[in-house]
């Protein structure tokens, strides 16, 4: 493995690891404050129980997310010093603002996690809201910086130097809006489906359990809404990619020839040597329509570009297919869920639908990983699209396979522990019998001052 490949692998691995924790950090606060809000409003203790248990899992994930995010901010320089030397001032705005958003997120998370018995319920709830807002904002700022790498703006390129830097223009580049919208929705969607899947699994084992029903109720609303909105966001981003990164779009779609009425390819395997995509299901004119709004529009193919500017076509195409397939599947699950809920005027808890939720649980995260693969691999060979090649940005430090291996092992161990701990937390959720006792306390008059199970504490 040469040093460039090791550096790219380490960056990819670090991003793939961090994005899971980042998404949870963005979206779980929403689920928690909905549950807590339900508790404040209805005084049903099961909701408070839910918010607190979700908070415990989130605390673990947030901590790992915070430190793995720190690793990334250093790795930008440790692995790509030449890139940062030129890009640093250009991404100064999103990263400075992200710093503050992250500050607020960490501060209010501390208040939220450790303030249950120190803050008035509404103040505590507001802290949760602040965690969600600042977490979402910090995600948006970071994606703004990434969007700049894909659609560089806000500078003049004179003699190989980035001069006349205009930071705001760089931040609000052509892709910032569609990319941040797509990723923000993705975070909420992935987390909502994962949470719904976990609680559906528990509900299958312990039917009628009010705790898990409450959890699914909240997660499903978020999941259904985002799954229905997300295809629109994705389409918006693809249309912008068609304009600003035509070569990436060509790779995503396995489009080798420049043609009018380009077909939309579903599946298929690009053959770079032969210059065509085999075994795909082709919908005539579909790509032209999706990319440019007309079945007759011309779509530029890979062969329009120098061979040394092609990204790894097969990886980008397949990752894109995986992402879209996951998205479509979740859309189907969502539409079905809305239909069932509308018809029976209640939470859809047919066993087969719960099984469907279990199966769909990981798909949001699969889609996020695949989507980032499209974005990052699809940008290659550039680190700053059209201006700086990844190979020219890498550190001169030799032996990069060593840090790559170290961080891979480290993250693998952490993943195992996190999954193990979350499993334990999930399996310790209350059973139906225990909940019946909570309900008794709830019904028993001066319940408000009694702690759950506090009689024998």
């Amino acid at each position, binding site marked *: 493995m040469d040093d460039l490949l090791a550096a790219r692998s380490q960056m990819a691995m670090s991003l793939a690891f961090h994005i899971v924790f980042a998404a949870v950090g963005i979206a779980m606060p929403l689920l928690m404050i909905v549950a807590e809000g339900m508790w404040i409003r209805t005084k049903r203790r099961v909701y*408070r*129980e839910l918010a607190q*248990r979700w908070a*415990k*899992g989130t*605390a673990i994930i*947030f*901590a*790992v997310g*915070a*430190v*793995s*995010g*720190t*690793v990334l901010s*250093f790795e*930008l*320089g*440790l692995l790509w*010093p030449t890139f*940062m030397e030129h890009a*640093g*001032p250009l*991404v*100064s*705005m999103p*990263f*400075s603002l*992200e*710093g*503050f958003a992250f*500050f*607020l997120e*960490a*501060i209010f*998370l*501390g*208040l939220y*996690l*450790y303030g*249950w018995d*120190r*803050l*008035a*319920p509404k103040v505590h709830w507001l802290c949760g809201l602040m965690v969600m807002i600042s977490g979402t904002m910090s995600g948006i700022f970071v994606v703004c910086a990434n969007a700049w790498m894909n659609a560089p703006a806000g500078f003049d390129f004179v003699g190989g130097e980035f001069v006349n*830097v205009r930071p*705001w223009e760089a931040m609000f580049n052509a892709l910032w809006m569609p990319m941040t919208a797509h990723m923000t929705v993705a975070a909420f969607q992935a987390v909502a489906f994962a949470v719904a899947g976990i609680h559906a699994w528990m509900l299958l084992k312990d039917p009628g359990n009010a705790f898990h029903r409450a959890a699914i109720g909240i997660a499903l609303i978020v999941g259904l809404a985002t799954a229905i909105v997300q295809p629109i966001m994705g389409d918006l981003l693809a249309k912008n990619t068609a304009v600003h990164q035509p070569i990436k779009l060509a790779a995503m779609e396995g489009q080798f020839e420049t043609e009018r009425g380009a077909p939309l390819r579903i599946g298929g395997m690009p053959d770079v040597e032969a210059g065509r995509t085999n075994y795909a299901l082709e919908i005539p004119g579909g790509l032209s329509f999706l990319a440019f709004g007309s079945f007759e529009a011309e779509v530029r193919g890979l062969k329009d570009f120098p061979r040394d500017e092609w990204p790894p076509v097969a990886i980008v195409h397949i990752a894109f297919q995986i992402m879209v397939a996951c998205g479509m599947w979740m859309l189907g699950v969502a539409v079905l869920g809305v239909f069932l809920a509308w018809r029976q005027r209640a939470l859809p808890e047919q066993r087969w639908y719960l099984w469907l939720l279990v199966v769909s649980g990981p798909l949001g995260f699969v889609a996020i990983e695949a989507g980032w693969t499209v974005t990052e691999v699809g940008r290659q060979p550039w680190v700053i699209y059209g201006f700086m090649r990844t190979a020219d940005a890498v550190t*001169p*430090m030799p032996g990069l396979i060593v840090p790559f291996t170290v961080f891979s092992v*480290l993250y693998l161990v*952490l993943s195992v522990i996190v999954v193990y*701990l979350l499993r334990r*937390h999930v399996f*310790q959720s209350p059973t139906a019998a*225990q*909940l019946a006792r909570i309900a008794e306390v709830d019904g028993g008059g001066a319940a*408000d001052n009694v*702690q*759950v*199970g506090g009689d024998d504490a």
Partner: protein
Amino acid sequence: MPELSTIVAMVLVVAMAAYVLSGGADFGGGIWRLFAWGPRGERQRDALNDAIAPIWEANHVWLILVIVLLFSCFPRAFSVLMTALHIPLAAMLVGIVLRGSAFAFESYPAGATRLQKRSGRVFAVSSAVTPFLLGISVGAIASGNLRVDAATGMVQTNFVSEWLAPFPFAIGALLLAVCAFLSAVYMTVEVRADVELANDFRRRGLWAAVAVGVFALVSLLLARRDAPFLYEGLVHGRAAIFFQILTGLAAVIVLGALWQRRYRIARLAALVQGGLIIVGWALAQFPYLIYPDITIAGAAADEVVLRLVLIALAAGSVLLLPAFYYLYRVFKAGKSGGVEVAQNPAPVADESEASGGADESGVDSR
């Protein structure tokens, strides 16, 4: 009015000082976990964890701010540092990851007691290793050994010899001692209701203060040979003597106040002392970011970037400072918890995960 780049550099120093004074003390808390055994070990561990838990993630963000300011406003310096100090910084990152993750695993074990114990140990060890490695990196910067080829702009480094040297290691030890010192002094205030614990941390604070003095002296002696520019600045610089005296005075006040068990005064003086050490170092290095090839003005980004970053910092502070104040008021204004609790008759959950054991919130422990 100083130049914009100088103002940004001053903000950078403030952020570094804030990181050492807050995040550094969190590392110090982990360091004292290594020594938390004996009859009161359990109580010491719990007190340290309680002190760190709600605030460490917020404190940690100062480091991110330092990094962001460096690459936004001094990108040349950033790329030189990240290239030449790859090894100690990457090792420090491993420490940061292990420290934060292990602390979370220990705090929310869901009854996995063996994992909890081991996480506690990892937390303690990585809390000691991380500031040591950060100190080594800082020492390498201060030593004047990171050279940049004026013609090519490339950093001249073999990636090792610049930091694998006595002076950087002395600075590593110094930072380690400062972290332990700050934590012990803060802890005397946190646990003042428990006289035995307060005495424990008082004794540790005194020892750590001595260690800080010893390592500061060793660093200074080594600097004479290994970091001559810094040495000149520290000993003969414009305001150097004034700063040395102030720092020494603060140190004496800490010692006296600890001795007299005036813990709040000791904490205040320790904050001043820690801050002065950072500011004194920065002044001694001025106007260089990395002596002798990279100056503050020389490495600065376009004025427009500096101005916008400063505006963003000012705007962000309007939100940040009240939020920080609130966080510290809620968790650090005495263990009684203040007004909020009195006004809040809502059920009080048992949030004692840190103490481990079977499971937490009552419902499922039967």
